[in-house]
């Protein structure tokens, strides 16, 4: 197991997150790079496949305030969510596909499994997608999601969040995560957030950004995403590098 995994990602099973107990793999994963390093057949699909630039979202897909209207506007507070997708060396990842999904302003998902007694918004789907530009930048316009209850423990509530999926150039960088909002009192009580090692938790919280905020229209939140780079190029973590 690599040190990076320990420092950034949650473990497969985390006692306070009940559904992880029977669902996370129990055994340590096999280090694929180590197996491949011992042989001469060349790298496998995992390190050779390049996924960036293969997907073309529709024109309105990034605007959740418009992509599912039925004659009206979705209710709630409009927000801009924007940031960059980078690898660990700080290089932007262009053409990465970002897919998001979220609850509506009342904390309800448009999903058959969501039985929370909060109103559905007929003009809000809660799903969007976009690809990053040459500087790795993405942007969504959406509605501030509401908090919602779940059944993990008594009086359990998820902090307001937006789910993110990132498909960049390398399979090693595949990431699914959740973006949270600054100052949310529910963060302290959330086992999913707390499963992340303490030092890395803050990376999941967006920053309020007056620069992204559009006057008379929408608040702006900044959320950068850092994914593992391609395993194809061996890295030297101790070297100074040429920047």
């Amino acid at each position, binding site marked *: 197991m*690599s040190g*990076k*995994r320990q420092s*950034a*990602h*949650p473990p497969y099973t985390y006692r306070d*997150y009940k559904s*992880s107990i*029977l*669902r*996370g*793999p*129990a055994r340590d*994963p*096999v280090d*694929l790079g180590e*197996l*491949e390093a011992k*042989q001469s*057949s*060349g790298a*496998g*699909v*995992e*390190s050779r*496949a*390049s*996924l960036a630039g293969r997907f*073309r979202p*529709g024109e309105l*897909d990034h605007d959740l305030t418009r*992509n599912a*209207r039925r004659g009206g506007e979705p209710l709630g507070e409009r927000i801009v969510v924007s940031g960059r997708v*980078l690898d*660990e*060396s*700080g290089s932007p990842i262009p053409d990465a596909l970002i*897919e*998001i999904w979220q609850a509506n302003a009342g904390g309800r*998902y448009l*999903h058959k499994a969501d039985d929370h007694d909060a109103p559905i918004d007929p003009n809000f*789907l*809660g799903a969007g*997608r976009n690809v990053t530009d040459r500087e790795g930048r993405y942007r969504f316009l959406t509605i501030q999601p509401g908090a919602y209850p779940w059944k993990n423990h008594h009086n359990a509530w998820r902090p307001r969040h937006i*789910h993110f*999926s990132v498909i960049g150039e390398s*399979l090693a960088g*595949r990431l*699914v*995560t*959740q973006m949270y909002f600054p100052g949310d009192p529910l963060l302290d009580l959330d086992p*999913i957030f707390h499963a992340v*090692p303490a030092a890395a938790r803050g990376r*999941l919280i967006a920053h309020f950004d007056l620069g992204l905020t559009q006057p008379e229209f929408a608040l702006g939140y900044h959320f*950068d995403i*850092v994914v*593992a*780079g391609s*395993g194809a190029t061996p890295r030297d973590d101790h070297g100074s590098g040429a*920047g």
Partner: protein
Amino acid sequence: MSNEPCLLTPSQTVGPYFTLGLTPTRDETGFGPLITNEIRGDGEPITIRGKVFDGAGVPVNDAMLEIVQADGNGRLDAPEFPGFARAGTGEAADNSYTFKTVKPGPLGGDQAPYICMIVFMRGMLLHACTRIYFADESANPNDPVFSRLPADRRETLLARRVETADAVSYEFDIHMQGERETVFFSLADAI
């Protein structure tokens, strides 16, 4: 512009509602699926089908699986070949998943043909990667990865070929825990 080293963004679970954004079926608003459970390209058309079992042996009804593969010629970069597909387990009554794809060719060297699979679900805080090898391939015993796995665990990566009059399918179940726990891989330098 100099690039500062950056710290990895932690993973979080895909949760119970991922179908909304990742495998949408509705398209009345124009937001249909961008990535489907189908890959078209050169090669023998096959269906891959199976279930995902949790530690209690219960089929998981809200798992999402992604596959990445070469085409029938062992090419990852053939034009118009996405080599990528996605399927959920919540659609079918028996909680099985289905991919319609082509059988990949080997990449070269001693490698046997295989498909990479990524497993996500509510309850998983981090995804897991595995490989689907084909039980009817004679190259498996020489494959540099397959052959180096513990002998008693290799079988968890074998998909079984089932032929009917007009179709070829492979069955591949995933066991998250227990005696038959599927071999999962960590990708070098990645997670």
